[in-house]
């Protein structure tokens, strides 16, 4: 009997199993409606935010997110031309949110994608083929995960110049081992299932087995982990920008907004509160979506 390995999906535990669907009438419809809402409300929030960040600037011309007219500094929300008002130096807050969101999503989606592909391949290979390659790879992954995040991020920022691309590079150092560990664990779990043994016995070559059997079966866990990872990466991107090692001002980013707001926090707390609340809402939506997907798809294991 294999001892269950604590992989990444068990570390941030999801909600408990759903109560059984009752066999009748109003209660059943209410439960079904609840499940539908739990999936689609967070999904709608995420899609809405993505649409606003990426599509809205193509449709409407927003005020500049980097330059502001100092004469208009400190405008309250719903001023003409500035939907959420302007910040302390006159830059429009709404466009800062929009373009900052663009950057946040670009970074987190890029890092998640790279981690998924690179880390996933490495992890699946390690888990499936095993042996000394697996041992070496696991040690390497452990080293990368134990590596302090800040050192690498700053080193890259100092050495190569802080910008979006280098930030993506630095964050990939975490995302690749994380996905590697996850996929390796998932592959190990299903490796000795009967259908896998059958596939191997029938003479299917290694990579074919992986493509046709391993990947489709580990996909659900990986997708939910990715969603939670996107949320985490948005937070990390905010932290790096806040510390000054990511997107540099005056380019808009949520971390920069929070930092600027922090300077005037005592007098005008709304400059910190607005980007913080947006950040929390987006990450909550991603977490809820990831949870609901895990509940729906995780039952297969």
């Amino acid at each position, binding site marked *: 009997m294999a*001892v269950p390995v604590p992989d990444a999906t068990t570390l941030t535990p999801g*909600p408990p199993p759903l109560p059984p669907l009752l066999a009748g009438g109003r209660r059943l419809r209410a439960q079904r409606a609840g499940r539908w809402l739990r999936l689609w409300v967070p999904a709608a929030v995420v899609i809405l935010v993505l649409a606003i960040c990426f599509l809205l600037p193509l449709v409407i011309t927003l005020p500049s997110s980097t330059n502001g007219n100092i004469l208009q500094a400190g405008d309250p929300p719903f001023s003409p031309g500035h939907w959420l008002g302007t910040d302390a130096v006159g830059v429009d807050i709404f466009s800062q949110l929009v373009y900052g969101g663009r950057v946040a999503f670009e970074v987190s989606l890029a890092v998640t994608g790279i981690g998924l592909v690179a880390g996933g391949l490495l992890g699946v290979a390690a888990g499936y083929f095993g042996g000394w390659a697996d041992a070496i790879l696991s040690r390497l992954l452990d080293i990368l995960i134990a590596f302090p995040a800040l*050192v690498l991020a700053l*080193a890259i920022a100092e050495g190569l110049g802080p910008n979006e691309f280098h930030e993506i590079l630095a964050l990939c150092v975490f995302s690749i081992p994380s996905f590697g560990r996850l996929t390796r664990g998932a592959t190990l779990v299903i490796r000795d299932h009967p259908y896998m043994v059958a596939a191997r016995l029938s003479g299917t070559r290694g990579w074919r087995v992986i493509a046709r059997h391993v990947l489709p079966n580990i996909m659900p866990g990986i997708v939910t982990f990715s969603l939670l990872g996107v949320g985490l990466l948005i*937070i990390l991107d905010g*932290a790096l920008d*806040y510390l000054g090692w990511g997107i540099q001002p005056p380019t808009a980013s949520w971390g920069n907004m929070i930092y600027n707001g922090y300077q005037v*926090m005592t007098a005008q707390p709304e400059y910190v*509160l607005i980007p913080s609340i947006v950040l929390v809402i987006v990450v909550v939506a991603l977490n809820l979506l990831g949870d609901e997907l895990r509940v729906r798809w995780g039952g297969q294991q």
Partner: protein
Amino acid sequence: MALAQQIQLQGSDAGARERARRIAGSPALIVVGRRLLSAIVVVWGVTFMTFVVLSALPNDTAQVLLGLHATPADVARLNHALGLDEPFPVRYWHWLVSVLHGNLGTDLEGASVNSQLAQHLPVTMELLAYALVGSVVLALIVAVLAARKPGGIADRVSTAISLLGLSAAPYVVALLLIIVASVELNLFPVQSNSLGSGSVLSFVQQGTLPAASLGFPLFAIFTRLLRADLLDQMQREDYIVTAKAKGISPWQVLVRHALRNSLYNLITVIGLNLGQLIGALAIIETIFSVPGIGSELLTALGNKDIPLIEGITLVFAVVTVLGNLLADLMYAVLDPRIRHGRAQS
């Protein structure tokens, strides 16, 4: 007859040898030994990688120390004196040897890295302990209340709060707490410069906000984990049925039996996340001006103070690896269910 002969054969020294062999071959010790070995490899790997990365930075340490008006000759001489112009493997070897002797070198300002660590590490550890203890205690209380009546008020409220805590980053929580507690209500100081020195009262006063900023997301994660684990046990395990059949009150079943088993999982998760906790602590220390190794690391990174960076990174790596080791041990060795399960299979 065979038994009598066996007992005869087991003379005193033969018995001792047998016992020693059994201990040496015991699965627990093998597991521990193997984990320890790989832990050492990982720690070494982290320091090596850090050295590689830091060496790749454009190194103008000597220039910075001497100031703008230094001539190239002076800079070259200081470089030579500091040993910065030697090839990379030589520098790493020197550092490695001195570390193995317990000396972590001197940083750019001339202070010994050991003394810097000794000064700042306790502060961070105290803050971490405060945050961990607080969040674990609160999480235990809330999770037990929630698991007692699944779907009840305590359950729903705790789920909502956990979701918020999971989604809010520590630094966001820190800023919000500052706004609420320090600025509006004036309960806690904004800066905690003298944390660690001084009375218990000043520690609580200055340490509560930083610990709460770190602790709130932790509380969320732990509550979720404990609640899921407790519910899982209450619904699925046979010994719970036995306990209830014996007539033990539901509270006692929950606290005395289910909780003890859930604690294993909790400690495992804490161990696995210890490294990331220290990383998050660095940002919080900067926000609150706490003189711990997190903010030391950030200033050292800003100054490109390589010996100090290496020293602190070593500490981080050791803590992370120890945490993983502890979690592994809890999981593979100490949990009696797994230990006995293995012996049977």
